């Protein structure tokens, strides 16, 4: 188990380095510092303004090799954008925003709270609700309940997330006036009203796909041999589902959860932006509108980091949950 863990972490690290390389290629070669400076300062400034701006934001170094130093001098390679990029990203030194010069780390800290206050309940409630509904539908498989549920799932899956948000805001926020359309408060008891609507919209929009997937997993497990054995022992259908099927189905469900984790990060992007929640998602959207490449770089990096961490966690929990893997 320990050997597996080390190998897994090692590969994860290599992946992080690869992602950083990808980001470097995208943000420094496909678009180069001159473009970034132009976008930040404007098209018609004098060359010195660009140079100064680049210097302020750390873009004034050469890309890969700094020929100003001698061949034997280590700084030939370390005083470059590439090295700097790696060094800073790996040490979580994110610098300042290209748009308004604010400290990215500070904004990250500020944004984390609101983001988590939305994504964590979204994840937990969504998962629990999805599993319960799927269990219910799987129990009644092949009956009209099952067929109706599948139709509903298909319909709800085909509606764009954007439309859920817009209609949710309109129907519940404007017409029924149950919850505020947007906004946020930092005190927990006040924040609840603001989070209610995005939470509702987020859960409902994802429910269709989730229930369908979990139902398929449950039905697959129900058709396995050990379920037949359980019935032959005298287990009732309810016990079969809860004590046997659920436990086994958790394994493939877990593997699927990792795929949803990045969607929490990005789906929250839309939700935060629409509902005015000052979290990391809003930060990203601001960066897009403001052509703020350094912030964007950071957000993409963090997103990847989260995803890789999530995958490692899932692999570990998979190993823990499935005794066949754990004890090998």
């Amino acid at each position, binding site marked *: 188990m320990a050997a597996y863990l080390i190998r897994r972490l090692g590969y994860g690290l290599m992946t992080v380095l690869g992602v950083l390389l990808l980001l470097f290629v995208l943000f420094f070669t496909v678009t180069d510092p001159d473009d970034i400076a132009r976008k930040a300062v404007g098209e018609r400034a004098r060359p010195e303004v660009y140079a100064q701006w680049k210097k302020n934001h750390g873009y004034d170094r050469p890309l890969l090799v700094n020929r100003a130093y001698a061949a034997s001098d280590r700084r030939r390679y370390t005083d470059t954008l590439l090295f700097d990029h790696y060094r800073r990203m790996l040490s979580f030194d994110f610098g300042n925003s290209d748009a308004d010069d604010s400290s990215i780390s500070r904004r990250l800290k500020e944004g984390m709270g609101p983001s988590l206050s939305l994504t964590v309940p979204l994840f937990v409630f969504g998962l629990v609700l999805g599993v319960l509904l799927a269990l219910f539908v799987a129990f009644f498989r092949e009956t009209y309940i099952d067929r109706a549920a599948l139709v509903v799932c298909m319909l709800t899956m085909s509606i764009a997330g954007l439309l859920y948000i817009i209609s949710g805001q309109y129907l519940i926020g404007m017409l029924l006036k149950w919850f505020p359309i947007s906004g946020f408060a930092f005190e927990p008891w006040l924040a609840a009203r603001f989070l209610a609507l995005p939470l509702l919209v987020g859960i409902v929009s994802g429910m269709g796909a989730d229930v369908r997937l979990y139902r398929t997993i449950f039905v697959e497990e129900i058709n396995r*041999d050990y379920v037949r054995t359980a019935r032959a022992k*005298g287990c009732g259908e309810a016990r079969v589902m809860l004590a046997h099927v659920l436990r*086994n189905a958790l394994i493939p469900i877990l593997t699927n959860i990792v795929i949803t984790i990045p969607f929490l990060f990005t789906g929250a992007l839309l939700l935060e932006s629409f509902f005015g929640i000052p979290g990391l998602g809003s930060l990203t959207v601001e960066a897009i509108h403001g052509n703020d490449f350094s912030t964007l770089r950071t957000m993409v990096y963090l997103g990847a980091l989260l995803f890789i961490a999530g995958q490692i966690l899932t692999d570990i929990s998979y190993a823990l949950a499935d005794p066949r893997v754990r004890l090998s």
Partner: protein
Amino acid sequence: MSAPLLSLQNLVLSFPAESGRTAVVDKVSLEIARGETLALVGESGCGKSLTALAIMRLLPKPGRIEPPSRIEFDGRNLIELPVPEMRAIRGGAIGMIFQEPMTSLNPVTAVGRQVLEAVLLHQPLPRSAAHERVIELLQMVGIPDPRQRFYAYPHQLSGGLKQRVMIAMAMAMRPRLLIADEPTTALDATIRAQILELLRQLSATTGTAVLLITHDFGVVNEIADRVAVMYAGMIVEEGSRRELLGQPRHPYAQGLIKSVPRPAARGGKLEEIKGVVPRPGRWPPGCRFAPRCPYAFDRCETELPQRTAVSPTQGVWCHLVEYEVHA
């Protein structure tokens, strides 16, 4: 003669087909006396596994038990039993073990706990008493070091051990009938003998009747008291072990016995029955074995044979035998 423990009368099982439903098991009648071991033999696809599942009312969903079937167990018709009572019988008065020990055990639960479930479902004992009972059961089926093995997971056990666990689960409540669906088919030859011996022993000590489904006559020879041969959804011959293995009367049974490779007959040609088993829905009218039967005559192609008693214990479903006996 005392009443049989289990009596299948005209069992008909249907499955959906291209148009409507088609019978897969067609008017099968069987009897098992208390404590006796009956082997139900036939090639794959003849419906023997489905017959076994039907007794437990565990037939897979699209299948249906059609009238005029009757399954009498200990005097009650199982088909009409309300579900909660049927559940009490499953694992209680009737136990069942399956062919693939690999997939028939829950992979994420310790085997001991699975046997524990078999006990607690029928007898609410306090935890410690139940645990002891499970250890007893594991010992009874010959699992070495049962206290340790209680916590083992199925994938850590060999095929033979897994099958022993299955037997422990099925025998937990001292059932009066044990249904074994090809219990040794997936096991190695040496383990096969051990498991069969275990079944024989358990049946002798606990008085449990055994319905053994198999396609292997070697198995039949080891533990069966009586044998019933099934072909294309119906029984074609039944009798005591000695009668069936020594003097089979139905051409199909004869073919089966002859085709078992014998070391003494080395060098000769391997016997075979020409042709293939017809599938449900494609059964010929009349005797289903007629197209492959070397002795078939005109009546065989139009009329299904009825049971002819060849001895007080041997019955054959064959027109030729009927003529021979009544001649």
